[in-house]
């Protein structure tokens, strides 16, 4: 089957039941999205399909019809995405394992709501678990990303 991931076309031979996550990681070499739970309960595997955030661990690859974007292609022209830049400036990550998923959820949030309230953040980010407890910095980084995006950075 044929998939477009991070702007590149892949031809893969996979069981259509295989979750998108494992197709990305094992068959396409995209290790950015992480495996955390396999049941869409932690968000570590979050990628975008046609710009919408999905839990790739629970989406059969055979059902993917849109364009897939992972953490590996959100930066443009050698620059970090404003959300990544904000994460860097706020020094968000500790172990870092959940952060690819957190960032992908935050990017989708800001694409939908340019200046989210705390309640919007809770709502969009509640499915992304972080065992290191980086939530206060995640919230601060989302707010910083709003400023960076507005400034066109």
């Amino acid at each position: 089957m044929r998939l477009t991931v991070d702007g590149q076309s892949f031809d893969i031979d996979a069981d259509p039941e295989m979750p998108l996550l494992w197709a990305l990681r094992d068959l396409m070499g995209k290790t950015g999205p992480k495996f955390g739970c396999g049941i869409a309960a932690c968000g570590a595997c979050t990628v975008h399909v046609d710009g919408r955030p999905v839990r790739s661990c629970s989406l059969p690859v055979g059902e993917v019809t849109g364009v897939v974007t992972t953490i590996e292609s959100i930066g443009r022209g050698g620059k970090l995405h404003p959300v990544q830049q904000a994460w860097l400036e706020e020094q968000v990550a500790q172990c870092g394992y959940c952060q690819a998923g957190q960032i992908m959820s935050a990017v989708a949030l800001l694409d939908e709501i340019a200046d989210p309230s705390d309640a919007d953040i809770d709502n969009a980010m509640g499915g992304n678990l972080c065992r290191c407890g980086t939530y206060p910095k995640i919230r601060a980084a989302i707010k910083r990303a709003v400023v960076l995006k507005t400034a066109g950075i």
Partner: protein
Amino acid sequence: MASVGRIARRTFLIGAAAIGGGVAVGYYYYRKPYPNPLEGDLAADEVTFNPYVKIGADNTITIVAPRAEMGQGISTTLAAMVAEELDVGLDRIKVEHGPASHAYYNATILEEGGPFAFFDESMTAQAMRAGMGVVGKLLAIQATGGSTSTRDAFLKMRQAGAAARQMLVAAAAQRLGIAAAELETANGRVLHKASGKSVTYGAVAAAAAAMASPADIRLKDKADWKLLGKPQKRIDMLAKVTGAPIFGIDVTLPDMLYGTVKMSPRFWAKPVKADLSKAEKMPGVIRIVPIETNYGHGFGIVAENTWAAFKAAEAIDAEWADPEYPLDSAAISDVLKQALGTKGSEMRDDGDVDTAFADAPRERIVEADYAVPYLAHATMEPMNATARLKDGVLDIWCGNQAPTLVRQLCANAVGIEQDKVSVHTTSMGGGFGRRVEVDYALCAALMAKETAGRPIKVIWTREEDMRHDAYRPASVGRFQARLGDDGMPVAVDMKIASPSMIASTLRRLFPSISPLGPDKSIVDGAHNQPYTIPNYRVTGIAAPVSIPVGSWRSVGSSINGFFHEGFLDEIAVAGKTDPVELRKKLMAAYPAAVKVVEKVAEMAKWGEALPAGKARGMAFTLSFGSWVGEVVQVADTPAGFLIEKVWIAADVGIALDPGIIEAQLISAAIYGLSAAMAQEITFADGLVEQSNFHDYDAMRIFQCPVFEVAILENFHKMGGVGEVGTPPAAPALANAIFALTGKRIRTLPLSKEVTFA
């Protein structure tokens, strides 16, 4: 506190392990340095000065930070220690974890492994610390844990940087023909201000490395620090915001196979019957192999991709033998409670507790029973390892907290010598004590025997990870206090029963060493707190339940912080004393502790009236050498209780990176609050009942309070950082819920009794 006589009568478990390592080899071997493990693996035109510093002719400066990066920021702080003395910025250096080597032994873990409280500076305590440090060197275990990394490294890694710098200056002096005393260093160069001449470190590195190590190593004064004591940008941050392949699970090798394991869901039990035929025939499955390790029995699935392996594991139809431990949580709890009635080890016995209680009037007695459940670590990255066994050489790639143990035990499992094993330690998607274990590496190593030299990446499902942990032990405590006329406690008697974490760890890692003597982790956080009560007894009892238990962030203090500080709150209420005032009075002999409690109370405006439906609780725990007070504010909302705000004051002695320390304190508090709110591992039919984040969840962003943190440096010894925020979190929360509702909850998790928003 324990006296000399008592020490002599007991052999501490840590001592038992130490004797296994052979203390008898003597002082000479203690003084003799381990060989530099970097010697054998240098790039062209690269030289090494000591196990921590490599410099290339092109002035590439590499610092080895040989501790596990689990998110605690240790690679940044360790690198900063060397860079500070070497006079280079963190942006000028490369940082590597380095190889598994005894040269990177951790002496501090054992130094604080004795029965003494951190503040006990008696001759006996100091002698035992020094002795344990020697043992640490002889055992030479390279390990990350016990919040010891910065303390263990503080002298030796600064010295490594300073020694290299002095050698570079000496070589530059020869090259430039200028006296060393006239030269300065900055940003990877040696310079002579007067003449404007300078050379890069790289240009003189080869000559410098050939020199003898200086006998007199001069360290900077604290006042001259440029990096240490100030928040640094973490060296791993860019990789972590770009999804870079830095974790064990991301390891990708040419010709690699994939796999998973299905181990007995009953610990130690063997398969009675197993039908592999259906699983073996599934597409993508290459073969299924039996696995036997000291951790248990089961099967490894070798496949073409992870998904095929997961599906095949599910399709294995196996029946497992009966467990050797009680079948369910109720029966386990009974064993723990029965143990409370048996004789234990008194790890603190001040005054005469029996006499103090003998004539106590009923109304002056406070009594309470406490209990906490087993807990899983639930690191975000499920256990995994990649192994390749080719031409008699084993390579293992994995996150781990003890590379020399991984090397030793994998060599034994595969049947080769240790020098044929290379351990490549990756970043970890969380550790919290889980990666002190080596089960994930053993499984991968054994499966690599079956792949004809092809590497195999073995990833556990979340369910396998949740059900095969070395859990935080369940524990029960019985507490009694006698109050005086002024409401202050004159006697306390604390009995705590729990399975022994050290005995359990020895069974898995060193089954030939039999555990001797008491396990102080059973009472850690209860017997060594800076309170003065005239009659003060703390007894620990090892309960015979063989479910695997191990180190879970803050270990015994995660249990006893809750017990001790919950009970102290009960004493305050019964004696009509304010909980903050009670603590300040009891800890008056320890000014550092008083200052922490005063600080956190001041930050939280303790004592000021709150609106209806809100209340606060406080707790204090000294653990891993740091003194930590926390205040938690809860609000009753229509959706349930909400933790609104948490204040933390922590005295860490010397704060090497305030930014990272603050992040760790918040992280550890959230880890403790997550467990206190809703986590428990329970058993039915000998099996763990929880399996994934739907039934073993942790705090989410919408539950996360606002934090305010103060870092103090009053005490004269450096404390640990990674774990110390956890112990006071649960009791401060439970005490706040009591303040709000009048309901005293003595059994965790709190969700059994109340609902959280």
